């Protein structure tokens, strides 16, 4: 199932970015790429979230997202571009979490996280116990990776119509998908 830019914008809406509540869906702004002081992804020039951090987020997404979705790279870049825009605390947390992952991957797998195989990347999250810790922005290394990288990406996917549709819910909580779908039965 192809993730779209619209999915990323819907997820941004659910993440409280670009509040246009009350307007028709999707409720996120669509101008993240049009900022004169940012790059094509809407990232301010001084943001700690640069290409390397985006590559790492995509690499994490490829592990935590199901194989049934495609378009992960564009989805993650669009979502993250909007998410970090104007939120320096969050951007800094992402950058630190990426550094944590890189340090771990370099020590145990011989290179930065995004350069490792999918199997190594999955194993690294497992060995760091990212799968079993509670997310905590100021917590342990694993808790920060869970909070800033893994849960952020999972939140983005499963609050988007395409992501939640994988489980049969095309209008997930947080997405202003109208009042028709609740009346409709499942697809045959």
């Amino acid at each position, binding site marked *: 199932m192809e993730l779209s830019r619209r999915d990323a914008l819907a997820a941004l809406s659910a993440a409280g*970015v670009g*509040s246009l509540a009350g307007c028709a869906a999707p409720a996120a702004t669509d101008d993240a790429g049009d900022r004169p002081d940012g790059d094509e992804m809407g990232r301010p020039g001084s943001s700690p979230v640069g290409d390397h951090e985006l590559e790492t987020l995509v690499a994490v997404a490829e592990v935590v997202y199901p194989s049934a979705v495609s378009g992960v790279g564009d989805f993650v870049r669009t979502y993250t571009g909007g998410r970090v825009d104007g939120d320096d605390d969050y951007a800094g947390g992402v950058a630190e979490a990426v550094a944590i992952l890189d340090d771990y991957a370099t020590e145990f797998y011989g290179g930065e996280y995004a350069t490792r195989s999918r199997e190594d990347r999955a194993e690294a999250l497992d060995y760091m116990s990212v799968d079993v810790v509670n997310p905590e922005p100021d917590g342990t290394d694993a808790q920060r990776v869970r909070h800033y990288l893994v849960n952020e990406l999972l939140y983005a996917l499963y609050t988007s119509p395409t992501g939640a549709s994988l489980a049969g819910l095309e209008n997930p909580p947080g997405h202003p998908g109208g009042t028709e779908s609740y009346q409709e039965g499942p697809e045959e």
Partner: protein
Amino acid sequence: MNDGADRTPSPRADVCIVGAGPAGATIAAELSAAGYGVVVLDAGPRFDPVDRVEQMERHLRPGVDGTVWDTDPERDAYSSSGERYYPLNVARVKGIGGSTLHWQAMVMRMHEQDFELASATGMADDWPLDYEDLRPYYADAEEELSVSGASDNPFAPPRDQPHPLPAFPPSYSDSLFADACEAVGLTTHSVPNARNSESTNEASACVGYGTCNPVCPSGAKYDATRHIDAAEATGARVVDRAPVQRLEHDAAGDRVTAAVYATPDGSKHRQAAREFVVAAGGVETPRLLLLSRSERYPNGLANSSGVVGRYFMDHLFAGMGGTLDEPTRQKHVGFNTTESHQFYDRPDDSRTAIKLEFLNYAGPAPTDIALTADSFGDDLLAEIRDGYGQHVAMGALVEQLPRKENRIRLDPSRTDDHGNPVPDVVWGLDDTTRRTVERANEIQRAVLEQMGVDIGWTVGPDNTGPAYHHMGTTRMGTDPAESVVDPQLRTHDLANLTLAGSSVFVTGGAMNPTLTIAALSLKAADHVAERL
């Protein structure tokens, strides 16, 4: 802390209203539109509607700091010393709009029997007014709250005109219950909702965010800020973060003279007015009266009867749910579309009222599972598919009878951020209420078993909890020895003091109380205007 707002008293006010929830806001809008000078004081902040999507994120995503509506543990400190713990701070919102900011927005008229319960069944007490007295105000309240509803409820009391907006159609999930309900003889019908099924001049139609409780980002769900906005548009003054510390009265004890309130800069002020309305909810309204004790009223203002704070009631939740072997399409919206009031009226004194609900939001959403899962990738998706999608559930509100021992009192051992004793919620269940919770469970089980549901959970008499409807603590009546306010909601003791809200309910029925709060408030506003 200084945000630049002017929180000094108004030099001339006809009416001072304490509390900017649905009762206070409705009265403020009515009286301000009629040309009276109105000042509203509220303990909580004015929330910016622009922040509501961020507030929704706080609700949806565990691990994000802060409560959705900024509960302040020092400002909102409380005790709970009764037989049952009462989680007060998840039951209310302090701020402009009050608890309608997080409510479910279900708005039913109470039944004729609710107002004459003692006469009809021998239980509890009659109200000093009847359904016909409130009937025109119910109609006005439905207009004020832009209620979406249909006249398809055979158990509802008589009405004269359709609801302002059409009802939300039933859900796919509702359709799964239909055959089973018919088989067990349970008649269902639509749900009146204070959320827009169509756009109006005031708000857009619901866009299906699905997070109604605790926050509606679109504004399609009514909250009392609509009436605050209306009041301010006609000249009312609304002061936030101005907790009233006490009410002062004249030497004779016949009239309230001022509301003494604090402001964030540490100052205290006195707001004088000709009429005062306390509309601070079923906990803070009696607390303020108790805090305002004086030589003339040593047991608390307007408390010659001794029943201020007594007869605290809530509705009990009874529920049951499980899974079917088919998709049930939950979590698309955050509100319900089908109910049954068939078991509402009481046949005798064997049970109290039951309002049955069919939930459209049973079980977890995919995000709920994903963010707490210990698997990733395809394994996680499998876990989500297994956990989401086949749940169904029924809920119910159950009436709790008024008991004198259930009460709000002051806890002298704890103080809030201004040094005032905190409210102590003393709350427990009586046997009739427990029996009625069991009866609700019996009906729910009959329906779910008829459907073939694998029942996974039950909320019954031992694990039930409150529905967060605070009622009864300044009850209405005609006898000053037994009640606090008269049928005009004016206190027996002080001629210019009105108490508005569900604290004046004599009995609580099992309907969500806000439509009745609004109807009573419109009536009270008429009486205040007559006196001005």
